[in-house]
């Protein structure tokens, strides 16, 4: 089963259809945000060491830098708000999907690695943006947490566009 499908399935738990059965609390949102960033940091670290294409190496490094920066801000905010991130089905699913992606990437090398990494980055960032739009922002109770989610979104969009640029340039 494609790894990205697992990640999407995890995030799709948060689709409106599922929402009637479940609501996402601020504590759960905090956990989802931190986990989502960490998953991409881990994949980015692997890309900086394993990627062959220099653009992909550079992109991986950027993911580490940017998602670390976002996590720093997110952690500072939830600490200030005295919100303890609460592990939940979605954050666990994200983590599981992330681990599977890493395991898959570790089995690949050269151009195959590069393609698998960047393909996953495209799918992953799109899924996270969808979750931000459809669930996290609408659910957020605390105004500052909601504002942070809104402020984070453009970074994910920029990452997605950059990943798509690299994806389309592969094999040319």
């Amino acid at each position: 089963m494609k790894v990205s499908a697992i990640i999407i399935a995890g995030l799709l738990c948060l689709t409106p259809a599922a929402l009637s059965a479940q609501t996402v609390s601020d504590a759960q949102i905090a956990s989802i945000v931190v986990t989502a960033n960490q998953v991409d940091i881990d994949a980015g670290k692997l890309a900086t060491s394993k990627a062959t294409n220099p653009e992909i190496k550079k992109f991986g490094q950027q993911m580490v830098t940017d998602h670390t920066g976002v996590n720093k801000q997110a952690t500072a905010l939830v600490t200030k708000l005295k919100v303890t991130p609460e592990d939940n089905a979605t954050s666990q699913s994200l983590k599981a999907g992330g681990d599977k992606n890493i395991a898959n990437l570790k089995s690949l090398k050269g151009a195959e690695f590069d393609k698998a990494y960047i393909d996953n980055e495209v799918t992953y960032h799109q899924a996270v943006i969808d979750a931000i739009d459809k669930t996290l922002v609408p659910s957020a109770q605390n105004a500052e947490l909601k504002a942070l989610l809104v402020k984070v979104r453009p970074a994910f969009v920029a990452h997605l566009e950059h990943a798509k640029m690299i994806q389309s340039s592969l094999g040319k």
Partner: protein
Amino acid sequence: MRIAIFAFALSLTLCTLTDPAGARPKPTTHTVTIEGMKFQPEALAVAVGDIVVWVNKDLVPHTATASKAGIFDSKLIEPDNSWTLIVRTQGDFDYVCTYHPTMKATLRVE
């Protein structure tokens, strides 16, 4: 007395008209805010001698780097930090964030 005042006023006027230093406008400071993965404003017109300050209000680091090599490069601007440029070269300069290639803007120097 009136002649003295007139003479003084006349000499002041002549000084302003003939002295280039007196006629040159003071440099203006312009601010470009980097936020939401964008340079705001995306198009900025300034004069030679003006000051441009890029302020990073975003969650991630950025740069302000002219596409034409050697014109200007802020290098790393961390969140909550800024970078100041005294503009010395005339022209239209496209610039980008070297970390995020989708971030583009222009600086027009007159």
